[in-house]
């Protein structure tokens, strides 16, 4: 018993970390190794097929119209949503960086949307987007315009899904950028004003350079997150109409969990993991600097 106690004291560091280490390895390291392994097989547990095909899955993936469209849509969605969210977030942060009456009351309300479950949000927006009974088309008809096929038009569906993401997650970019604005010392502005800078020039030459890191982080964080887009596609459009809102996550879901082509789905998962990891690494380096 005493020997055990001594061992425990010497290796206390490992004892504290061990449970977390075991669970992380079990839940992430092992599955990642396995997903890579599966991606080299033609594997369908329902039809009981398991055959080694090497890189065959990858070759077929990049010849698959659905996957390529999904790749394209995912990039489009991620870049579009990220840029708009950070831009709107910046505008909102400038607005709330001013002192005005009611600011304390309105600030928590602006952050409201990101607290709701994505499914609840999809329920609301799907009802508002409805072609016949939706409030948007009602407003358009009342104002004398043609109703819009928000979720059922090939050209528009992806943008309608994007608008929901913008509504839900602009508050995130806003929070990051507001924190950035408030970390800029007021004396800097005064000094610049003494030098004769005002308005737009103040913004361009004082605010923007000092906000650079925060803008960069907001861009990284939002692009990593929007790249995963799945829930909204599932609940709003189901990937359609046609392949208009097909995304990589949705492709993996459909191949893996509806058709049980788990080999091919795994190959797509590996591709996706690598793509996200590139951006994640940039983010992690940034966080590391902040830590050190």
């Amino acid at each position: 018993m005493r020997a055990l106690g001594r061992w425990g004291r010497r290796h206390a560091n490992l004892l504290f970390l061990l449970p977390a280490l075991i669970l992380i390895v079990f839940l992430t390291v092992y599955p990642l190794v396995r997903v890579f392994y599966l991606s080299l097989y033609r594997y369908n547990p329902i039809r009981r097929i398991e055959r080694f095909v090497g890189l065959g899955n990858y070759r077929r993936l990049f010849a698959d119209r659905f996957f390529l469209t999904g790749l394209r849509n995912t990039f489009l969605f991620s870049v579009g949503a990220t840029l708009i969210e950070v831009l709107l977030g910046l505008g909102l942060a400038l607005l709330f960086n001013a002192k005005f009456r009611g600011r304390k009351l309105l600030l928590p309300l602006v952050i409201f949307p990101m607290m709701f479950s994505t499914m609840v949000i999809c329920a609301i927006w799907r009802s508002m987007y409805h072609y016949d009974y939706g409030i948007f088309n009602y407003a358009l008809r009342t104002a004398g315009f043609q109703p819009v096929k928000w979720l059922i038009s090939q050209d528009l569906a992806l943008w309608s899904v994007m608008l929901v993401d913008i509504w839900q997650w602009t508050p995130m970019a806003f929070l990051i950028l507001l924190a950035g604005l408030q970390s800029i010392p007021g004396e800097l502005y005064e000094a610049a004003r003494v030098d004769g800078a005002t308005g737009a020039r103040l913004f361009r030459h004082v605010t923007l350079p000092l906000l650079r890191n925060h803008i960069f982080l907001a861009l990284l964080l939002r692009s990593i997150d929007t790249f995963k887009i799945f829930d909204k596609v599932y609940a709003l459009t189901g990937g359609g109409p046609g392949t208009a809102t097909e995304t990589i996550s949705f492709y993996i879901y459909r191949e893996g969990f509806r058709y049980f082509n788990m080999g091919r789905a795994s190959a797509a998962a590996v591709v996706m993991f690598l793509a996200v990891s590139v951006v994640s690494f940039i983010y992690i380096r940034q966080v590391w600097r902040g830590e050190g």
Partner: protein
Amino acid sequence: MNIWRATRLAKRALFWAVLLSVMVFVLFPIYWMLTTSFKEPLEYATRTPSWFPHRITFQHYREIWKEGAYRYFINTVLVSLGSTLLSLGIAFPAAYGLARFRFPAKLDLIFLLWVLLVRMAPPVVLAIPLYTTLQGLGLLNKLTGLVIAYQVYTLPYSIWMLLRFVRDVPIEVEEAAAIDGASRLRTLVAIVLPLVGPGLVATAIFAVIMTWNEFIYALLFLRRPEVFTLPIHISHFITEYEVLWGPLMAIGITSSLPILILSGYVQKHLLRGFAISFK
């Protein structure tokens, strides 16, 4: 002088106009959910929906209660609390160990890096192997299985959050306790734990919000209605019925209330909570 005052007035008017339109854009969907849940079907399933409910009805709330939506509520509470408690129980010692000890071969750095990478990774990437693993353990369609799967989200998250809070505890306090002859474990429970308390609560609240709203793993690992969580129930509602919006919004409101109340407690931690880390 007059022109100067006029432009200032115009600027202020513009400011309030922009602020007002922003608030309308942000709040209208929530307003719409709230009012629709109190409208009679004739007021929303129509080409001329009403902007305000003319007659307020509670029929949708009664209906979802009678149809047993509380079961999904209970499931969600169980999964959410279960995954949060499990995560905190494992993450707190880990965060303490990482903050206070040295590790061989930079194990701590590698571990933290990996955990951060995992937190950024798309959950669907791990879904296939997790599915087969849970199947092998007989934990598919079980809330316990989902609690384990949710550690993919909550554990990395809790470790990073708590690491920050533990680092904020001055080491002198612990050294004083050690001089008084307290063991590591007693120091941890009697000294560090109370000091980290508020941080622990904040972390727990974020973990609850995260798991309460989670969708994809619940969708993939729970296929039987009796174990559904609220988001899954809502997703079935959305995709199966075209315009049953009254009950749908009623359930949306009910399922969001606990989260909205909890989020009030973590306002000042929001940034840390959602963005992990930076100063």
